[in-house]
């Protein structure tokens, strides 16, 4: 059996769903050991056991919470030295990207990033990665051992496997040389009413909304539908709305029941974060926009007129 590692991310002591998504996949690829670092690791290890980890390596040193990437890269490199895994799975998230890149460079290995799936093939591992702006899907083979693969969030569905993990203390001392990029403050900005990632309906706006002043139109529709508002990278970069609302490759991945893209052209950067939605509705003044080719319903027209009319109609229907 292949030795498969899952790097399980904690945020403020809370095990991230992405770790459980990776567990669901990893179980089918070999014997799974998870690594979870920082305050709360032991509690998280129990959950990882239920999701199929045979062994969970833990270390609750606060340095893992307080410093970017280097302590975790040290711990993983030290454990790699002893265990020589065949595959290490990371989530394609900011924290894991920082760690995976450092680890790979230290081990002198390649990385397959932004993967949508991974499979065992001919004694190694092959991952599926979007290519040529997402028009193609490349099968990419990792040439080194370990294969290091970063998988996009929401690629797999978490499910319990009903086991119990052996919990092992990962012995590593984090020297001052790795305590360099220090998180000195955490600032939460406006909290969302319905979390974008969990919303059953997502209404996202792009450049076609004309300006930030028109985003309340989307809020009103979201309120009427009990959904959340998202945005394209272009309008986040332009400063219209905060980054927390960004859907796409560098933002959040969503798969709601209904996704309504308003004034969004549909660049790969955006669609990779929403194309798994069950139903997609696009409202755009350009019939040739790429988003129209993937929408279940594409409406060519003026979003600033259609959205308020739709909100009124939804309210009327709901009574």
């Amino acid at each position, binding site marked *: 059996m292949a030795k498969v590692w899952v790097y399980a991310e904690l945020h403020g002591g809370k095990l991230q769903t992405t770790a459980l998504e990776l567990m669901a996949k990893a179980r089918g690829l070999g014997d799974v050991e998870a690594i979870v670092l920082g305050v709360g690791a032991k509690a998280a290890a129990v959950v990882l056991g239920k999701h199929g980890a045979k062994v969970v390596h833990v270390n609750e040193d606060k340095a893992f919470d307080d410093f970017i990437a280097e302590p975790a890269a040290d711990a993983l490199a030290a454990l790699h030295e002893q265990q020589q895994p065949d595959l290490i799975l990371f989530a394609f998230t900011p924290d894991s990207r920082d760690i995976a890149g450092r680890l790979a*460079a230290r081990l002198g290995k390649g990385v397959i990033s932004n993967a949508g799936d991974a499979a065992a093939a001919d004694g190694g591992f092959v991952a599926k990665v979007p290519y040529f*702006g997402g*028009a193609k899907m490349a099968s*990419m083979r990792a040439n080194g051992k370990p294969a290091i693969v970063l998988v996009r969030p929401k690629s797999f569905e978490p499910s319990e496997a009903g086991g119990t993990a052996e919990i092992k203390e990962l012995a590593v001392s984090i020297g001052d040389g790795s305590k360099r990029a220090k998180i000195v403050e955490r600032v939460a900005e406006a909290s969302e009413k319905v979390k974008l990632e969990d919303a059953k309906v997502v209404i996202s706006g792009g450049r076609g909304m004309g300006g930030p002043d028109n985003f309340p139109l989307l809020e009103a529709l979201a309120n009427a539908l009990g959904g959340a508002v998202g945005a394209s990278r272009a309008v986040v970069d332009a400063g219209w709305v905060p980054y927390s609302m960004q859907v796409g490759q560098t933002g959040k991945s969503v798969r709601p029941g209904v996704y309504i893209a308003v004034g969004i052209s549909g660049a790969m950067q955006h669609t990779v974060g929403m194309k798994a939605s069950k139903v997609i509705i696009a409202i755009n003044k350009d019939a040739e926009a790429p988003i129209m080719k993937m929408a279940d319903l*594409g409406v060519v027209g003026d979003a600033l007129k259609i959205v308020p009319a739709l909100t009124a109609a939804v309210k009327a229907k709901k009574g």
Partner: protein
Amino acid sequence: MTLSRRSDNDLHVKIVVTVKQVPDPNSATLLEPDHTLARDREVVLDPGDECGIEEGLQLKEAHGGEVILVSMGPERAKDAIRKGLSMGADRGVLISDAQLSGADALLTARVLAAAIKPEKPDLVICATESYDGSTGMVPPMLAELLGVPQLTIAKKVEVDGSTVRIHRQTADGYQVVEASTPVLITVTAGIAEPRYASLKGIMAARSKEIKQVGLAELGVERGEPGETIEGLADAEARKAGAIVQDDGTAVDRILQVLAEAKVV
């Protein structure tokens, strides 16, 4: 193997900005109808890198110093460097070698590290990810190979003596993260609005130095690639549904779809 810390204070900040020439994100699709790569496609300086250059220039203007652009790419990538020089960067380094065609993230990071190390910069600024590759792996690899800490996804950067402080964008806000120079910073596209090159800047850029080096001069060997593409298939495309002009019935059509999806 770490970069040496500079002894002088922040009166001079030596800044390296990594830049890349990419297919123009605003031009037509990447692929011809027969799925081959459109070879005559326009190439431009990566828009994310323009923001990195702008941030570098603003830090230089505030603290004094030098902005050096380092790029890996074919000969024509000089155009991308030249654009950054016309914005105000001081000089450029282009690593160009036939052996680098198809380089993966690790080789790219090794090559950039070899070119950057002798410059002994205080700050290395990278875009969080490139517009074309979007894997975001080169910056953390480069930080590791340079032996410096990484301050990532910065939407704001402050330099205070040898302390660098950033606002690191997170899903629900930001973290304040700090480290001592030398550091590598990755910046978001929202960090700074890139300036337009002035005519004076464009003229001045013509006489600025772009040093061109090959792999042998850097002492880097290509080595085996970390990963190999075994096959390409058409991405699973969603079927296009109905496309309708809004002739006044659009709201009803949308309501119908919402009703079928049981959200109204």
